[in-house]
Structure formats: C-alpha cells, structure tokens
C-alpha cells in the first residue's frame, strides 16, 4: 500500500534536491562536483548541500512545493488538506532558513515527515482498547453506501476472535435488500453469533438486542453494522443518532474507502459533526495503493485510523500505523 505516493514523493524530494543543487551551485559556482553516483537519495542531498553554506528562501522552494502539491492532489489528497500540508512545509522551511549550514536535506525531509505525521496522528490499537475497557465494548460502524461496512464488520469480527475475544454482531442494516443475508453468511463462516430482525425493522431495536445479548452472555465485543447513508439525508442521520442514543456505543467507527476523492473530506466531516467518530477504517486500500484518502480524512476530523482493508478475504485487514507508513513513504530504500 501507498507505493504510488511514496514513489511520487521521492521524485519530488529529488526535485527539491535538484533545486537545492542548482541554488547551491549558484551560491558556490566554483565548487567541484561531488562524488559521482551515490545511489542513495539522502546521500546525494547531503553531499550537495551540507558542505556548503546555503539558505533556503521561500522563492527557491516555490516550484517544488507546487509540484508536491500536484502530487498530493493526484494521489487523492483533498485540495484543502493538500493546501494545508504545503503551507505547513513552507512555514517550516522558511522558518529554518536562517540557520546557515544546517543540513537542508534533513530540513526538507523532516518538514515533510512532520507535516504528514501531524496529519495522520496516532494510530488506534483496538485490542488494547478493549483490554482496558469495561465489557462489553460496543462498536458502531457508520459510513455512506458501498464503502464496505458489512465486510469490515466481518473482518474485524474475525480479527478480534483471533485475538481471543468473544464477539456478537448486530445486523443493523435493515434497509438494503440482502444485507441481513450477507452479514448472516459472514457471521456463520467466521463462527460468530449474529443478532438479527426482519428487513425493514428498526435498527435501534436490533442493536439494542445485540447489546442485551452481549451483556447477558458476557460477550466481550458488540459489532454493530448499520445501513449506508448519505450525510445529507437528515432523516437517515437522525436515525443514526437514535441508534447512538439507544445502544450507547463506546466506539464509533467511520468506514470509508481509499478510492474516494475530495468528497471523503465532506462526508467525514458531516458524520463527525452529526454522530461523532472515534476511529476510522479505510477499506479497499488494495484498490488504491496511494494514501490520499487516509491523509484527507485524518486531517479533516483529526481522528485516528484504526484499520486498512486490503482485500476480499477475512484476513485482509491490517492495523494502521502512521509512523511506519510515513517512514515507509520517505525511506531511502524505496
């Protein structure tokens, strides 16, 4: 995952490096060319830059920053978010400019890293959350239509079961035809009890029953599936709010897909505003190996990413780790 973005970012860092190289060549035209063909990017920048005195001015980085912004946009980072990341880097870089002799490569990379880490925030460790929490832990899944809530519920159910927790699923999507059958098949395949009503039933009632069942049977985790809904449908959002009031979830997990574009920001914001969000799951990350939507959503609502969905199997779910991702993104050995 995120290969595309990493590749692009590295191209851009090379762009920075070239700019810096030109700039430093201008500032010290007589300087001999550095040792040839150091394969490592950081090495090259270091040689070119650190041995001379050089200041980054805002003008110098204007063009590479524009390119970087384009790269972010091409990778589905939403426009306002890309703008802010760029502003962050610009501020960081021009703030550092007076420190003559400081290694510019480090400055550029750490600015970028800082900006991305800033945006992505901390990850979210579900297992330790459950361990430190009173049982049953009630988790409500929200999101727009077709992002993969039901599949994610099944995957997380399998994941928790593997980690030794007992799980019950509440089939709260009572609207879409076939949804109850879908989650029912999933649940029986992974061996998890499911609480369901008829299609068209009140989802609050279903999920309340699921919570009751968990309390009566000392089950660790309740996973509450819901019908997909658009954030601009007031009545459906009110229904979700009612679900929240009735089942009192400990965690509200917002599910969105990695292929989503700028709208990801809008809907993440609206869901956060109307029912709240505690953590985010990004599905279909195998479809889009770039990391744009993750950055957009995390930046917009400031909530941690918990899992990435990476395929169609029950095991295709990986806990999200921001530090690792950013390191991977910027690592020398691409």
């Amino acid at each position: 995952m995120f290969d595309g973005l990493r590749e692009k970012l590295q191209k851009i860092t090379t762009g920075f490096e070239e700019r810096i190289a030109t700039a430093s060549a201008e500032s010290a035209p007589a300087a001999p060319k550095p040792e040839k063909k150091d394969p490592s990017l950081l090495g090259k920048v270091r040689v070119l830059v650190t041995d001379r005195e050089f200041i980054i001015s805002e003008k110098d980085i204007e063009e590479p920053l524009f390119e970087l912004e384009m790269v972010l946009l091409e990778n589905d980072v939403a426009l306002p978010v890309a703008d802010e990341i760029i502003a962050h880097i610009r501020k960081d870089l021009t703030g550092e400019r007076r420190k003559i002799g400081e290694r510019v490569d480090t400055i550029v990379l750490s600015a970028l890293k800082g900006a991305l880490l800033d945006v992505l925030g901390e990850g979210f460790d579900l297992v330790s959350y459950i361990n430190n929490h009173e049982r049953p832990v009630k988790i409500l899944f929200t999101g727009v239509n077709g992002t993969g809530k039901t599949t994610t519920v099944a995957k997380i159910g399998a994941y928790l079961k593997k980690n030794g927790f007992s799980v019950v699923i509440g089939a709260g999507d009572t609207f879409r035809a076939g949804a109850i059958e879908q989650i029912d098949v999933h649940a029986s395949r992974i061996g998890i009890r499911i609480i369901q009503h008829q299609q068209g039933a009140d989802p609050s009632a279903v999920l309340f029953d699921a919570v009751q069942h968990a309390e009566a049977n000392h089950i660790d985790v309740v996973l509450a599936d819901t019908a997909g809904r658009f954030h601009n449908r007031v009545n459906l959002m009110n229904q979700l709010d009612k679900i929240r009031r009735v089942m009192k979830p400990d965690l509200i997990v917002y599910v969105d897909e990695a292929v989503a574009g700028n709208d990801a920001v809008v809907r993440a914001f609206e869901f956060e505003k109307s029912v709240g969000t505690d953590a985010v799951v990004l599905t279909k990350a195998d479809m889009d190996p770039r990391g744009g939507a993750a950055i957009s959503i995390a930046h917009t609502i400031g909530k941690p990413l918990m899992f990435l969905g990476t395929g169609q199997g029950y095991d295709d779910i990986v806990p999200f780790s921001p530090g690792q991702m950013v390191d991977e993104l910027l690592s020398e050995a691409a």
Partner: protein
Amino acid sequence: MLDHLGSSLKDALKKLAGKTVVDRTAVEDLVKDLQRALIQADVNVRLVMQLSQAIKTRALEEEPPRGMSVREHVLRIVYQELVRLMGSAGEVKLGSQTILMAGLQGSGKTTTTAKLARHFQRKGLKTAVICADTFRPGAYDQLSTLCSRLNIPCFGNPQEKDARVIVRDGLKATGSAEVIIIDTQGRHALEDDLIQEIIDLNTLTGATHRWLVLDAAIGQKASEQARRFHEAIDIDGVILTKMDGTAKGGGALSAVSETGSGIVFIGSGETIEDLERFDPDGFISRLLGMGDLKALVERAQQSVSEGEIDVNAMMRGKFTLRDMYKQLEAVNRMGPLKQIMSMMPLGNIELPGDAYDMTSAKMARYRIIMDSMTGKELDEPSLIASSRIHRIARGSGSTPDEVRELLKYYKNMKRALKGVRGGAGKFNMQRLMKKFGGM
C-alpha cells in the same frame, strides 16, 4: 463547507465582470480558480491541466464576439471546453439488448441493475436480470428481492461458484426477454483473475453494452480503473451512482475521457426509481459549483425582446415605479427572482431579503396595483400620498396596506440598486441591469 467550493470561481468571474478587454492576469486567476474547483470535484489532475491550458489559450487569443462581455466570453469558452471533454450523453436504445455491468466493489452495481431493469420495464420491454455475483454473500438475495418487487425475472444460483456457468444457464433461462442485464461481482482492475472472468463473460454473452458503474465519490483512481476496464471489455457507457450525496462526480469525466464513451445514467437515490438520464449541463453546473449556465443563457435570450428598461435613467439614480414594473415583467418571464439570482454566476449582489421572497402571485398583484396608477405617479412615485393610495387601492381592488407594501418594496429596491451603482461603477451596473431585466 460545500458552499465555498463554488464561490471562489464566482469571485474569479466577478473580477472579469468590469473588464472590457481580456486581461491576462484576470484570466490566469480565473483559470487557477477553475483548476481548484475541478480538482475539488475529483476531475483527473492531468485532465484539469490540459483543460485549463486550452481555456487560457482560447480566452486570450480569441476575440470576444460583438456584444458579448469579456466575462461571458470566458464563461462560454469554459462551458464549451467542458462540454467537449464530456462528450455527449451515452446512447440508450430501446430494443433487444444484453447489458453487462462492471465496476468496483461497492459502486452500486446491484442497485443500479435493478434500477435499469425497472427503466426498461417501464418502457414496455420484457426485461430479465442475471446475478453473476458469486462472491458477495447475499448478492443474489439482494437482487432477487429487488426484482421480485418489480415482477422482473431474476436468474441466479447462490450455490454455483463459477459466474460463467451461471451466465450460460441464465442466458438459456431468460431467452425470451428483450433486455437482459447481467449483474457481476465487484472487482477492481488490479485483480487479474477477476478481470479475466469479466472478459470471459463478455465473450460468452456477446453483450450489446458494457457499462461501467462508477461511484460519484471516486477520486483520481477513476482514470486508471476505467482504462483497465476499457482495455478488458471495451466499456461503452458509464453510469454514475450516488449522485444524491455531496460528491461532484468528476471521476466520471476521467472515465469518459479514458473510455471514449459517454455517461448514460445517473443514480440519484436509494429507491428503485432513482435513475436519471444524464444531463451534461446540470452536471457541469455541479462540477463548477455554479448555477446552471446554459439554462440562464437560454432564459435570458427568451426574454430579450421586450421589457426595455431605461438604464440611462437609472444611471442617474432615477429608478421609478415604471422601471420596476418592466423589471417585474421581465423577471416574471424568467422565473422566480431567487432562482434567477442563483443561476447568475455573478449574482452576489445583496438584495434585501424581501426582494427574494417575492412570489409570482405577489408580483402579479403588484403589477395590477401599478396598473391603477397614473403615468405621472409611475414616473414620480413621491407624489403618491394618502388620498392617492386610497384611490389606487380602490381602483385595483386591493387594500391601502397592499399599496403601501408595494411602495416600501419599491423603496428597498431603489436603495439596493443605488448601492450597487455606488459600489461597482457604471459598467457593472449596466451589466447587472442587462441580466436582471433581460433587456
């Protein structure tokens, strides 16, 4: 949050409003804002760059046609270029055909399949669907439930694991149907075995149409996915789903440009009837976050002929009841005031709230009242005092209060126009009146 998306473009257009010659900086600003608007609408970044280059070149090189302001000229170019990019709406024939649905997971294929079946059924065609989704649990239940509500035959076999077998059997079972729609499993273009499956299905069915179902929210990935699907099965139409959300659907532009096809339908809601034929103009408006450009142009043209307003008199600060009468007439032809204002790309002029709230019934009422005034009163509204008010009320069958209300409305209007004139200079005023009065 959403509103400000379109507004930056409006601001850019406003900068062009007062200009008589095409100004390089203003055009560049506009193009930059256009880029932002389109990127936010998820149009492919490269496509946006090409498009904005074309617009810039044309805007700077082409001479504005006579009588067309710079702003209109640039807007027209923007509009034309977008239309060119989008191509025309994909064709849908009413006749015997087999339609193969393709798309990513969760894009809405199954729902759209049922909606399409409903569409053809309503057109009087014998329709059947085949559920070839062998992967997702509940897929067959979903489709057969939707279809049984419509009395449309739905073939499928949840036990069978090979989609090819299902489709082969399905084609036999649904032989007499005129329109056969095949729903397939969601797949993305990087899954080679699934892509092979859909190639096989395409060969097997000899499908008349291969439609790509695309979520309106899809981002930059739309291009690549569409290209791969196109390479595999030669996509000849795009269906854009979930347009009832806030996503602007710019991904569809990428898909259309990759596949060289057109958008055929738009899914706009959760019920079975929520499927619309694609309308390029509405789509462009939504992309840019601006009012419906084409509709405005058309309506303004329709009401051009009559209703002359003495702009010059108004320039001198003389806005009489007679002017208002003409204006109401013109506006009446163009639809409710608020709608007109929202359709106007630069309609950010602050009018008093009650000016917006005028209903057409009230406008008609006002005109009747004004019909009872003398010519002198219309030209010199300050003449109208208590006894005249009573006379006018009697003559028009209204109450004196209604006449006073009209006079108050007139005063508000006058003040608003004065503000516009003072603030934005002669040129803007003239253009405003042109739009406003449709002269």
